[in-house]
């Protein structure tokens, strides 16, 4: 598939297989649905609203209750505690009350002895609605001032005057569609009632503490009566940050009512219809710039389709605003984020968390500027990169380290950008071929830290046993990103023992409490540091003990390679641990970490929301059939900054996987609703994520070799989300190919995803432009 896949050989020693790799390939890795079922176990399904906005006049469930194998049926009134399961703000009723606000909203829930019985039963309800007018697009929501939360702006300077006074101006708008997570394992929770009138929940969740809190809330229990356990997810991508909890809550209510174990697993189509996705955004932008393409002022309006409730949309639109600059200095600025309330499912976190939606506006703007001035888009990008003297972001944080000029120049060289640009220009002039090629090199600068400051903390629990084996728990969850592997590596390295001694087990709220979601790419940054803290404490206790026991200075003791060297003697690690135990040394510790240096005030837009930035750049080349809009991504080159890699194999996996997922969002994955607010891309038969065939045949990925200047875990950098946005290079390359039809004198306003049909539309616009010019 690829000519070369490279990684920096300096880090090869850190390469370890995913801790569950053998279990994955043998089918022994257990997911929630794989847990053996109890004989009396129940299964849940929900009855769904068929209207986007309606008042429920009558809900007749008698036929539902009468169905064979149905054990229990609940509506909102049956919820023992508070039925609002909004994760940050209220507004998400677990089951509908008087009014429904999206097609698919759960009206009631059924517990039956089998999933098929539950699914059959929910169809038997008789529901009378009074249909109300529905708001279905961000444009309509703006017209009606329909918002889930108020707008926010970053303002610097008198931007309107600056733009008006600029030598050149461009202006554009784009509709950027959302994205279905399509984690291969759908949403699922299993709830087992316990003897303390509480519940044990096994969930596929990125946020066990959120599940725990909300289950306690709906059951009106103190939090300590609810335990949540997450061993692994079959993919999360943000979709299981807030969206996992409602399933656990419904299962928990039934479990308490029936005193039976209850599983709620959503079949794929229900999952697609009933759970939130990446937000659609309608972006408008205007820029003023000089004859080198250097921006003097930018205004941007970013309007997000949030759906019916706030969910995580505050932070998501914040992050879109924080990344509306991508890597570029705007000088005078006004960036406004709108959180549009629509009668659609409440949109939620998805890898990138709004940032891709801000960045795509920035990248479209760069291409527009290049076309306006007849420059290579890469030169416009380079001219606008943050640099000394032009280093303060629209939100007041100063970029301290300018990595992108170096990353871009290295990538430009290794991928032969200039030469290929010339060859492509030549090809595109070439006679009567119906193919055109496009090329684009785009950067990514992604801010690392939760913008909600309190989430930037983590805890860990470490036990050293008397045989020298070590058990590690932390607050992060494993969704495939390799967090458990990286944390185990950190633990082994911190103690000076081999990886084989470390067991990382399921994340549980009764082992490590008050956890933050595994989100914002923060998993290894936060939990790695918390584990390091715990390991250091135990290591210090062991060394203190050994110094006293063997009567030597602490400096004369070292632990490396499973051996404890004390003066000239060498002992097995287990031997010293056993000895320490016999001498009553505490061999368990909790670790804690909070990210330093960060704070941000939205009212004054001052401070430092991000501890540091992860950077990268990608070059993509495409070939387009101008007769049909069909295309292929033929070559991709990536250079990405992961600091000092904790595990290059895992980081490569995140970069490649993130890129392909981003490419899917921008190419074949078209999230569509009909005019009544019904999701019509509601199954994998009509919502197309990339297959192996879509991956570029030449796919070169390299890690940029530089340690994080900030004190992160072993100087590594977060890697979960940033690479997704490298795929913007594919979208820009497609736009470049379309612009070539207009001799690069016109940049067709391309929306996303750039499906064949969208590319064809842009080709047609470019042809129309040429006809107008020729006339």
């Amino acid at each position: 598939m690829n000519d070369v896949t490279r990684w920096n050989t300096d880090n090869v020693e850190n390469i370890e297989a995913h801790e569950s790799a053998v279990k994955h390939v043998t089918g022994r890795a257990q997911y929630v649905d794989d847990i053996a079922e109890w004989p009396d176990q129940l299964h849940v399904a929900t009855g769904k609203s068929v209207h986007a906005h309606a008042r429920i006049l009558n809900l007749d469930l008698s036929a539902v209750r009468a169905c064979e194998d149905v054990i229990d049926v609940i509506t909102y009134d049956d919820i023992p505690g508070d039925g609002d399961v909004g994760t940050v703000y209220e507004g998400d009723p677990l089951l509908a009350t008087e009014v429904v606000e999206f097609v698919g909203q759960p009206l009631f829930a059924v517990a039956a002895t089998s999933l098929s019985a539950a699914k059959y039963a929910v169809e038997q309800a008789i529901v009378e609605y009074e249909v109300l007018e529905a708001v279905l697009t961000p444009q309509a929501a703006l017209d009606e001032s329909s918002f889930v939360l108020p707008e926010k702006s970053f303002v610097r300077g008198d931007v309107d005057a600056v733009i008006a006074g600029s030598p050149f101006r461009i202006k554009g708008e784009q509709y950027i569609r959302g994205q279905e997570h399509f984690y291969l394992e759908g949403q699922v929770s299993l709830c087992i009632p316990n003897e303390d009138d509480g519940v044990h929940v096994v969930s596929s969740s990125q946020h066990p503490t959120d599940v725990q809190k909300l289950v306690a809330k709906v059951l009106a229990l103190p939090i300590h009566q609810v335990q949540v356990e997450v061993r692994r997810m079959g993919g999360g991508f943000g979709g299981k940050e807030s969206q996992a909890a409602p399933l656990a809550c419904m299962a928990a209510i039934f479990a308490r009512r029936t005193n039976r174990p209850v599983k709620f697993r959503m079949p794929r189509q229900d999952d697609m219809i009933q759970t939130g996705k990446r937000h659609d955004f309608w972006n408008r932008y205007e820029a003023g710039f000089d004859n080198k393409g250097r921006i003097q002022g930018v205004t941007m309006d970013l309007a997000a389709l949030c759906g019916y409730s706030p969910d995580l949309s505050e932070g998501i639109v914040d992050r879109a605003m924080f990344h509306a600059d991508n890597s570029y200095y705007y000088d005078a600025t006004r960036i406004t984020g709108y959180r549009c309330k629509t009668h659609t499912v409440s949109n939620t976190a998805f890898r990138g968390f709004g940032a891709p939606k801000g960045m795509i506006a920035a990248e479209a703007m760069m291409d527009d500027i290049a076309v306006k001035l007849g420059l290579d888009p890469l030169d416009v990008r380079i001219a606008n990169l943050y640099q000394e003297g032009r280093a303060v972001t629209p939100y007041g944080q100063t970029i301290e380290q300018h990595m992108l000029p170096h990353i871009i120049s290295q990538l430009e060289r290794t991928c032969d950008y200039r030469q290929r640009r010339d060859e492509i220009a030549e090809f595109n002039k070439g006679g009567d071929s119906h193919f055109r090629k496009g090329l684009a090199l785009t950067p990514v600068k992604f801010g690392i830290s939760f913008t909600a400051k309190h989430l930037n903390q983590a805890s860990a629990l470490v036990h050293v046993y008397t045989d020298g084996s070590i058990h590690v728990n932390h607050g992060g969850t494993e969704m495939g990103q390799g967090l458990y592997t990286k944390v185990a590596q950190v633990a082994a390295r911190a103690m000076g023992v081999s990886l084989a001694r470390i067991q990382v087990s399921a994340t549980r709220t009764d082992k490590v409490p008050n956890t933050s979601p595994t989100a914002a790419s923060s998993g290894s940054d936060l939990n790695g540091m918390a584990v390091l803290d715990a390991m250091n404490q135990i290591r210090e206790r062991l060394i203190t003990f050994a110094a006293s026991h063997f009567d030597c200075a602490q400096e004369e003791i070292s632990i490396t390679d499973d051996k404890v060297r004390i003066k000239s003697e060498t002992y097995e690690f287990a031997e010293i641990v056993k000895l320490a135990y016999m001498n009553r040394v505490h061999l368990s510790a909790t670790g804690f970490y909070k990210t330093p240096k960060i704070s941000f005030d939205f009212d004054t837009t001052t401070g430092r929301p991000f501890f540091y930035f992860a950077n990268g750049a990608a070059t993509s080349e495409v070939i387009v059939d101008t007769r049909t809009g069909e295309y292929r991504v033929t070559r991709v080159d990536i250079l990405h900054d992961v600091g000092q890699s904790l595990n290059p194999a895992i980081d490569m996996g995140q970069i490649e996987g993130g890129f392909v997922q981003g490419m899917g969002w921008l190419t074949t994955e078209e999230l569509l609703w009909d005019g009544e607010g019904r999701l019509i891309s509601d199954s994998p038969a009509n919502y197309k994520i990339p297959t192996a065939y879509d991956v570029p045949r030449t796919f070169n990925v390299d890690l940029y070799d530089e340690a994080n200047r900030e004190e992160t875990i072993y100087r590594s950098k977060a890697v979960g989300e940033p690479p997704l946005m490298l795929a913007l290079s594919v979208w820009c390359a497609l736009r470049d190919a379309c612009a070539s039809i207009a001799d690069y004198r016109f940049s067709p306003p391309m929306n996303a995803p750039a499906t064949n049909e969208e590319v064809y539309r842009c080709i047609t616009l470019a042809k129309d432009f040429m006809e107008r010019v020729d006339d």
Partner: protein
Amino acid sequence: MEFVLNKERVQVLDIDADTTVLNLLRQRGLVGTKEGCASGDCGACTVMVGAVTSDGQIEYKIVNACITLAGSLAGTHVVTVEGLQNGGELHPAQRAMVEHHASQCGYCTPGFVMSLANLVEEQIESDQPAGNLCEIVTRGISGNLCRCTGYRPIVDAGISALNDTSSLSVCHDDARDFLQTYDHENDPADGSYHRPRCLEDLDRFVGAHGNQCLVAGATDFGLEITQRWTRFPMIIDISKVIEMREIGISDDEISIGASVSYSEVEQIFAERSYPFVHILHRLGSRQIRNTGTLGGNFANASPIADTPPVFIVWEATLELRNSKGQTREVSAEEFYVGYRETILASDEYIVRIVIPVACVDRFHRLYKHSKRIEDDISSVMGAFSIWGDDQNIGGIRISYGGMAAVPVRIREVEAMLMGAALNIELVEEACARLRTVMTPMTDVRASAGFRMDMAVEMLDRALREYMGEKLPRVDDLL
């Protein structure tokens, strides 16, 4: 019903007729096989099924357990991800997946492992040189979706597994004995799941129960169960009816039984029609093509089925038979009478499809448009067959799928081109005419306007290519 499940023989009695293989496996505690979509789109449920072919060979193929019916397993060897290891040793496909860091969340992994293991198995069975491994692997995993890795390490793992010379067949001695000695003729029906072996038997069932519960590969039917939660108390599995499994090739015609799978059809046309084989590669996935059948593609009467437009321009006929054993022949074109409606009487079924060799030998172009290249349903499917001499068009057939309620033939445009001397002006006129005779719809796959433009583009391209212009498609280039 009896089959071999991994290393052991199992007897399954008294299961519901509409039980899927996936549910059967998971109820037996084999939970390594996952449900990702329950619609045959993601491949997380992929398992290998070994059976004796008509020429006595044992052949393994991958299927989607989520929509394959358990009753179809009688007399087979089912291999799941739990059954691949040999005495504690990982199978080469498993080992390569670990070594190449090809799993992240792991949920799709068992399915990929099975698809790769099947490629290894095919390589063991085959005496042919392997060819381009990257292409073989990419094609071999076309029915498996991964959301984490971006596929590169999986493809690398597949290439590495195919280069591993230590590979052993999954077919152990006991499985071989079982497969070779299984008495299909006397294989009793399991309660309400019937597996007739000949047309006479089938006629009896159809006579008693009608044709609504006829199932071959279940690649569409299975979704009724898993997506619409319909229950089927009785199922008639026609995939073992010998006459419907027959392939007959003479100088004049190619006859393909209705229960012949797409994968087998690929082989029939491998040397006869590159365009058709190319279309078949884009029809469903390997798993779907292994079980889905031509008869099913017709009988489901979907307006977006890929093969009917092809058979319409190839002037194929369908042989139909009713429960009384009476047969009739209809042309592919007249088989459809309305949206999701066919000419079939309630006790009638398709026995075979007969294609004149002369029609296949004519110049033809088959174009499919879809959002994704692999495993996607057409937004427009165009089929064009043109014959005549250098100067004049002797005859032409044009058919489209996805443009109307049924696969349609465009007689108006055919008529204006018939006998004409083809030139660019005429091509443009034909395209303009096409616009006036079609009214496509807008849906999730494409807008009406785009469908129309693509239908016109296809006609234009086919005619230009007939005139000698070379207009490759983007996937022809790479």
